[in-house]
């Protein structure tokens, strides 16, 4: 039975495979752990901290922590829900997020997480930063007001598209997304068909002229809360997830 690892999420027994992280095994078992920087199939990053769980009592990011036999993971607890809410609210006040006129509204993972967590307004004061918009590219726009520094585009452009168009410069609160050119996106070899453009969880990387092809109200998270696809992933759920004594 070397190809199975049995561990527990919130007291429920879950079966995973060697080499999997907590989030990968949880996804397959139909257990949703909220996340932002994680994206299947690319390098685990561990930066947003939304997927923070407690593994054997210690907080860690579920997207980077490998599963081990018997690992006891806490996921849906009041404390962890509170941490995640706080982190989502931090991201809202760090940037300039105006959902009502953002063309990503309804398809935005940040917005969808806020709805799922019942956030109506962030409790922290807005920081109102000045951020650059780059519309130089004929087909793509970068709106850094909405960038949450998740590095999905950085990783996918580098490892999937093989281009490394995106990178971060500066540090701390000054950290920002840059492009592989002196200043502007049009001077990079980014193409509108690059996969990096399809993984932005927010409205920071947008393709021009297609923003409202799907009307508001009919978008992904207008239909169901974020995570519903994972929770309906019933392949493994009833068989592997058996309630055990706490």
């Amino acid at each position, binding site marked *: 039975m070397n190809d199975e690892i049995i561990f527990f999420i919130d007291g429920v027994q879950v079966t995973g495979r060697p080499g999997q992280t907590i989030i990968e095994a949880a996804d397959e078992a139909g257990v949703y752990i909220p996340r932002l920087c994680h994206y299947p199939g690319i390098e*685990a*990053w*561990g*930066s*947003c*901290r*939304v997927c*923070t769980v407690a593994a054997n009592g210690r*907080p860690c*990011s579920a997207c*980077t*922590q*490998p599963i081990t036999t018997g690992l006891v993971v806490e996921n849906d607890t009041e404390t962890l829900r*509170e*941490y995640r809410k*706080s*982190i989502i609210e*931090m*991201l809202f*006040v*760090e940037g300039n997020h105006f959902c009502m006129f953002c063309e990503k509204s309804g398809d935005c993972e940040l917005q969808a997480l806020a709805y799922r967590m019942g956030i109506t307004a962030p*409790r*922290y*004061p807005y*920081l109102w930063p000045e951020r650059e918009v780059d519309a130089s590219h004929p087909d793509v726009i970068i709106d850094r007001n909405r960038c*949450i*520094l998740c590095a999905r585009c950085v990783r996918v452009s580098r490892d999937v598209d093989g281009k*490394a*168009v*995106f*990178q*971060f*410069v*500066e*540090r*701390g*609160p*000054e*950290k920002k997304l*840059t*492009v*592989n*050119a*002196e200043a502007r996106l049009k001077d990079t070899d980014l193409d509108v068909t690059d996969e990096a453009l399809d993984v932005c969880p927010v409205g920071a990387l947008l393709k021009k002229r297609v923003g409202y092809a799907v009307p508001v109200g009919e978008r992904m998270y207008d239909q169901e809360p974020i995570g519903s696809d994972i929770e309906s992933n019933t392949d493994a759920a009833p068989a592997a997830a058996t309630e055990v004594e706490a």
Partner: protein
Amino acid sequence: MSEDLTARVSAICGEYGSDAGRMMDIAWRLQRTFGEVSSEAMDVIASETGATRADVESCVSFYSFFSTHKHGRVVIRLSNDVPDRMAGYHRVLGAFEDELGVKCGETTEDGAFTLESTACVGLSDQAPAALINDVPFTELSTDDAREIVRELRKHMDPRRLVHKLGDGNNAHPLIHSMVHNNLRGTGLTLFTSYNRGEAIQKALSMSPVEVIRAVKTARLRGRGGAGFPTGMKWEFTRGARGEPKFIICNADEGEPGTFKDRVLLTERSDRVFAGLTIAGYAIGASEGIVYLRAEYAYLRSFLEAQLEKRRADGLLGESILGHEAFDFDIRIQMGAGAYVCGEETALISSCEGTRGDPKNRPPFPAQEGYLGLPTSVNNVETLCCVAKILEMGPATFCEYGTHQSSGTKLLSISGDVCQPGIYEVPFGTTLREVLEMSEAEDPVAVQVGGPSGQLVGPEDFDREICFDDLATGGSMIVFGPDRDLLKVVEAFMDFFVEESCGYCTPCRIGNVLLRDAVTRVRQRQMEPADIDEMERLAGTVARTSRCGLGQTSPNPILSTLKNFRHLYDELVEEAPDGQRRSFDLDAEVTAAAAIAGRPDGE
């Protein structure tokens, strides 16, 4: 782009084998040669090393000692740490600004001077301090500041301003500095005299496994602050799959208020290098790296000369002391101004020539460290202890300290004490004894372990300095009755905002929000419920941040809320009108009024 620049930058890259992994060295050479790492230069570095331009910029823009705009020929960096502030930092800064005619962060119009403030430069016992180019200046007065600028205008050479040399090796021609060691009560182990080569000789007469066993028998724990058992770390590294293995000495002493590694490197570098060599032997490494913080660049020539001497004496290089199976050498890697690089995985990132972001763990450095190979990172003081353990034997070493915390600890004491400096005490010594030794003046609070440690009051003065009680990397900043402790908290939070790498959300944003909250408390704009919210946020940052920096960054707030709660309570009250105290209606409408052209918008 000028051909000349291209040729010169290419030549510099060539000196480092056009290896993108040596980005720190390349950037340093450019910074020193041109006063900046310009946009054009970054393009050349990228094409020479094969890194992307964005990767070059990512690295260069991360470190505070690199600049992408032209610095003055003389860069004055005034240390803005709390002990410096207590000793007159603001007055001295004002004098520099006045004399230079620029504000902090600016360069004079003639391109001669840049004035900046910087985090603790490791001279808290001689505050206020500054680095002028690489040269440390201590105990600055406003008169000194004016005099320095006037003199520099004549010859632009800060070294010529070092009129009185410090003690010990500070007076060595290769250091030539006014810095004092302030060694007080240090006779126990680390600063004792030694026979050069003795520790290595003893180690080489044992097998590597026996060396590790000796270090384990001595129950040595890391002196940087985390206290991980050194022998266990070496055992993991030795046993990990992957060759070659690396040993790194963490000389990025960045915790504000700490300066013991500076003194060890000045006075006992042989013991540090011996410890590093022994560690290399134990884990099976043939290359050691000393990651030296940029603030200690003035020690570099001296340390390089010491390494050269060790090579000449057969203590480094091939077949050390005739031991055929053991080749080992050491190189110095300069940091460039980033506190986070004291975190071992960030330090490794920096050694690899990238921004100093910490790495995800697992894998741990012992499994996949520098260049993805098994690596052990050990503190300067830890390595000194290793040499000492080999010299005196583990049993004698264990006679000092307690069972859980064997040996001694170097403390860096600054603030309101009559005798600031370095103290070596056995673990188990109480804080009260330390305060008496250093002749503290009516202490009401002590910051133990720097901003990432805790601020404790008199009720904790009988606690013991050891890993299980008052753990510390050695920083002790003492506060007398007249100090505004919330101002201290605010300064420490500002430090963490400045030094966060920005990788993870809670540390990057949470610290800004926490710093601003402390500011608002001090401005009496907070209500009691806001303090509870601040405490919750501090807890979230501590529990969800990715590395040790973020996990400890809220400690100034959390420890003062625990030990000095009244300081907050005195400044908060319920809003009388039901409107949030932090809400200023006039300020909020100013921008709109200005747009509308109303007089209240001015």
